[in-house]
């Protein structure tokens, strides 16, 4: 694990106007949004620097990366096959537990590190038709096509622009004070739990554009076409997890069905947590349409940086989160292989430090609790901007302790 240093998230109340360059515009909640403190030249410069990081990695992609994704895919398939076999004996509790745990892990890997990232086109450079965003499908209720539209295009292009990025609250939750309150948000704490449990279904209907349907802007035909696509995909999923595999366990089919159901729920809760922690913790900034009108490529980069938040953790944690714990890096470079995010994180941080920009990050529980707090608070009217961290500052290098041989004058390295 790379040393991440003290997370900026743990420095509370840095919003006092004392940090470099911030000018206070009275009553403007965005007074400290670093995007508005940078000159347009600086923004372009930052854009170019980020692009350079991207291009360097792109030029370096090769065998090592190809091996990585293939080994993960193979591991996933082995784990799935093994878990399904173990679950045939689901009437024995240890087998049930083992099979369910294996299947949950496999599903999480498949959705996060494999599916999400392949569908982003992170592995398209290999030119392998089997591991390609145009041919991939994943083990979840939503179709690859609708996901690529709502996520790769809408969310990653208009990230955190209120009104344009439909991932801000997914059109049925209020997660940012800039969203207008209405009484239906009172049900939000309850809906939140449902969304956690059945996340894949929420994602499946997400691309249908609920907003437009409510306003009657979407034709019946378009709605039916969407429903048909979802129905076909979801039908296959349900058939597999809730009919065919349980049937393999004979008269103990109920146990296997429960195991599959549990695995899906575990996967849902986990992916929901990781994804909500990517944009809804206090540190992340949101933007209004006016603020980002005439945005340049450099501006896009800065917005991505400010709008996302990382989660700290060890390598296994990063793998299980599909490296979305490097949400900042992912948003800067959505089509860079996820396995490279960790390597470029220090470069991103260095850029943040140089230009006085924040690098949003925090430990998992802190981030998750912040999100839950926001969801509860914003169920009710009002709610102010959350405190934002200041510019990223690299942690001081810990003083190096060198072992010396006792009884000898002066420090002599024991292990040169």
């Amino acid at each position, binding site marked *: 694990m790379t040393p991440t240093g003290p997370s900026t998230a743990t420095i509370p109340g840095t919003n006092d106007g004392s940090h470099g360059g911030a000018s206070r515009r009275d009553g403007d909640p965005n007074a400290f949004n670093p995007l508005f403190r940078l000159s347009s030249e600086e923004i372009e410069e930052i854009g170019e620097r980020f*692009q350079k990081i991207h*291009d360097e990695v792109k030029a370096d*992609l*090769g*065998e*090592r*990366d*190809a*091996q990585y994704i293939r080994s993960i895919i*193979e591991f996933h*398939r*082995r784990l799935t*096959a093994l878990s399904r076999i173990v679950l045939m004996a689901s009437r024995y509790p240890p087998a049930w537990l083992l099979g369910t745990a294996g299947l949950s892990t496999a599903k999480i890997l498949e959705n996060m590190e494999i599916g999400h990232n392949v569908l*982003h*086109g992170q592995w*398209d*450079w*290999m*030119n*392998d*038709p*089997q591991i*390609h*965003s*145009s041919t991939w*499908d*994943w*083990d979840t209720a939503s179709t690859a096509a609708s996901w*690529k*539209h709502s996520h*790769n*295009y*809408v969310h*990653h*292009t208009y990230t955190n622009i209120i009104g344009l990025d439909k991932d801000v609250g997914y059109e049925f939750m209020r997660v940012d004070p800039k969203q207008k309150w209405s009484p239906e948000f009172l049900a939000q704490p309850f809906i939140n739990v449902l969304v956690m449990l059945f996340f894949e279904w929420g994602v499946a209907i997400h691309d249908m554009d609920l907003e437009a349907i409510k306003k009657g802007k979407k034709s019946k035909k378009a709605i039916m076409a969407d429903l048909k696509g979802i129905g076909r995909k979801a039908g*296959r*999923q349900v*058939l*597999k997890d809730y009919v*065919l*595999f349980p049937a393999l366990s004979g008269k103990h089919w109920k146990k296997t069905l429960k195991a599959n159901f549990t695995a899906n729920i575990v996967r849902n809760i986990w992916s929901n947590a990781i994804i909500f922690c990517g944009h809804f913790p206090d540190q992340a900034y949101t933007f209004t349409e006016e603020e980002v009108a005439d945005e340049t*490529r450099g501006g*896009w980069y800065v917005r991505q940086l400010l709008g996302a938040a990382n989660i700290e953790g060890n390598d296994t944690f990063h793998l299980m989160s599909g490296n979305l714990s490097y949400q900042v890096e992912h948003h800067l470079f*959505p*089509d860079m292989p996820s396995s490279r995010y960790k390597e470029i994180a220090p470069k991103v941080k260095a850029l943040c430090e140089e230009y006085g920009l924040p690098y949003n990050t925090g430990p998992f529980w802190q981030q998750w609790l912040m999100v839950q707090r926001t969801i509860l608070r914003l169920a009710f009217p009002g709610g102010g901007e959350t405190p934002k961290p200041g510019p990223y500052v690299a942690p001081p290098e810990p003083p190096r302790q060198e072992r010396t041989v006792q009884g000898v004058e002066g420090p002599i390295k024991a292990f040169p």
Partner: protein
Amino acid sequence: MTTPLLPDDYFALLDPRWSTREATGTVLRVKSETDEAATVVVRPDHPWPGHRPGQYLRIGAEIDGIRHWRAYSLTSDPDHPRGLVSVTIKTVEGGKMSPWFTEVCGPGTSVFLGNVEGEFALPDPLPEKLLMISAGSGITPIWSMLRELQRRGRLDDVVHLHGTRTAEGFIFGAPLRELAAENDGYKLHEQLSADDGRLTTENLDDLCPDWRERSACLSGPREMIDAFTEHWEAEGIADQLQTERFQPVIGTGDAEVGSGGTVSFVVTDKEATCEQGISILVGGEEAGATLPYGCRMGICHTCVGVLREGQVRDLRSGEVHGEQGETVRTCVNAPEGHVVIEL
């Protein structure tokens, strides 16, 4: 049962060759032909559908994690008793795949087998008199045809003119000389360009006075084909000449840097012209094509299309890239010369 995967994907865990998702093969040996050329013998993992002598095979291989594709003439007999196939490859200096095939890949390497393509074939029915003209590595399809004639016992009256820089550099030189020694019906003329200059249309009357009466098959570099085709046309007998240019037409590199180019969209069936700095997507839309797009800035991969021909320039980095079968994002790439794209 295994949705969204295929049962195949799980069988492939046991043995990758069991997968029927793609046609693959294993390299049996690489036989050096000359200093610069080698024949790669492949055992297909699935039964070989057969080919006609003169056709070429699209063959793919993974080099440093990236799959590349090229087309090479098949030089094996269509009905090889053990079902083996081979392609003969000349090393292109600075090339990506040819040096890899001739120098790096060895027995046991997996390769991908694409389609067998090409219209270049022996005339049917076989005429009395044939004229074969080849130059450099253009010999490969001609070699296949000559072998076919030999097998069918129809080497009755074949004149073969081959241009090569040196006698040692003549791919299949030794077996063809032998063939000529054993068969009165096959006359081989080697023209060494280092001594006698290149093989041109002016040599025809000397080397093969009755060329106008023969069915001719010609395989060589582009300029040579153009010159010979013109010559046959001038005589009004263009229908007696079949040609194969063995160099694929890709971004020739002589167009002015980044000057744009033309695009053929094969699915929407539209032709577009892109001025300098105009992406394929914008050019296509202006020409009236309805193309998929999302972010229009290179991040969402909604706009990708498979490149059939030509090369593109990445408008962000200026890098020129692209080869047959590669998917490119139309919103951030401009044609570099002429491109054909599957969209």
